[in-house]
Structures are given as C-alpha cells and as structure tokens.
C-alpha cells in the first residue's frame, strides 16, 4: 500500500513537472500575451495542483490529517486564484492597449466596449 502510494505520488510529481515544463515552453513559443496566458494559467495551475496533490498522497499513508488538509487547501487555493489573476491581468492588459497578435482570427472586442 505504501509503495503504491509512493509510486502514485512519484508519477504525479513527474506529470506535474512535465506540465510545468510545457507551460514554460508555451510561455516562450506562443505569440502574444493572451495565448501565453493559456499556457501559464492552465498548464501552470495544473502542475502546481498536481504537486499539492502528491503531497497529500504521501501524507495519506501516515494519516497525517493536518498535512492532507493543508495540501488540499493549497490545491484549492491554486485553482481559485489562478483564473482570477489571469482574468485580471488579461483585462488590464487589454484596457491598457495591449493588442493581440496579428494571428488572431476573430476579433469581436473593441476598446470602446469596455472603456
């Protein structure tokens, strides 16, 4: 049982690490702020979430309630805060005049709509 949990935790952190890596790659490769934000807020948040989760798993064997609870709280916290910050940042960037890259195919929002 213990081994199993450890394998699980190991796989989870590996996946999380890889997700973080891809998020970083995305951050580098994607053309503009909004697209990069997809990478950071989704893959990034997921990566962090997985890390917390694997801590919860490693603690599960010892039945360390405090740690599990805290890990879950951390996980929830990341899920709650990442979209908020991403949304705020996107909004701020747009209002301050940050144009999406020329690759954008549909463009329904104009500055005047929200000014």
């Amino acid at each position, binding site marked *: 049982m213990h081994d199993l949990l450890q394998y699980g935790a190991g796989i989870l952190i590996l996946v999380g690490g890889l997700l973080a890596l891809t998020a970083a790659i*995305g951050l580098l490769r994607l053309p503009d702020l909004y697209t990069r934000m997809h990478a950071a807020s989704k893959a990034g948040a997921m990566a962090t979430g997985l890390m917390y989760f694997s801590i919860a798993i490693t603690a599960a064997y010892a039945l360390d309630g*405090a740690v599990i609870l805290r890990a879950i709280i951390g996980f929830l916290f990341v899920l709650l805060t990442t*979209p908020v910050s991403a949304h705020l940042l996107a909004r701020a960037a747009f209002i301050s005049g940050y144009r*999406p890259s020329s690759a954008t195919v549909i463009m*329904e*929002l104009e500055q005047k709509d929200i000014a």
Partner: protein
Amino acid sequence: MRFLLAGLVLALMWAAVTGSFTFGNILFGGVIGFVALWLMRDRIAQPTLYRKFARAISLSGLFLYELSLSALRVAILVVRPDMKSHLKPAIIGYPLRVKSDREITLLANLITLTPGTLSVDVSNDRKVLYVHALSAPDRDKLIADIAGGFEQKIMEVFE
C-alpha cells in the same frame, strides 16, 4: 442534529489544520465551530442547502475534468513543432445568461480554466463576456459549449 454533525466536522477540520489531534485542541475547535455555526445559523437553516451542495460537487467534478483536459491540450499544442498552424486565437463576445456579479465572476474564472478559453472582460452593460480562445475555428460551437456546460451548472447551483 445536523447542527451537531456540522460542528463535529468543523472541530475535526480545525484539528487537522492546526496539526494537533489532542483532546484539548479538538474541544477548542469544536467550541469555535459551534460559535461560528451559531453566528450564521440563519443562512444554513435553508432546506436547499444540501441540494446546492450536491450540485456544487458536480460542478467541481466537471471543472476538474475540464481543467485536466485543457492542461493536456495546451501542453500538446505547445510542444508540436508545427504549433503555428494549429494556433487560431480569437476574441469572442459571449452573450451572458447569468445575471449576478457573483455568477459572472465564477463563470469567467471557470472559463479561464477550461480548454482553450480565457475570459478577457465583461462589457459595460454586463451582457457580453469577452472570451479569448486559443484555437477557435468555429465561433458558435464555442459559445454553445460554454452555454451548455459551465453556465448551465452555475445557474443550477445559484438558481
């Protein structure tokens, strides 16, 4: 009875958070929990609470699933050598059905975490949510996805 149960759960959570399962600590958590419950007794006395709770769980489940999916898609997208050709970013005006600020916020946040979408802003009249999509070949399909998925669930939770 429900009141007692909730109090007990709160006491155990307190113990877990503080990391000490001694009797004194649990008792202390219980006292705090009961005080808190007593202070907000009006709000939890509603019969719909449990139904709402169940729906919230359901929403969370959907959300987690979508999140994993979206993370995976982004990951796959960015590691493709031919990323540029698969990338079709768009900003789409999504007509809102939910009304309250609370709901809009929640929806906007959830949209941000779902595959390929990211909420940018709400129009001044609170009728349109502008969404940025990573890859949106088809505008209407995207709108339909959102309307049928998260917005529906949120409306259920908040009725």
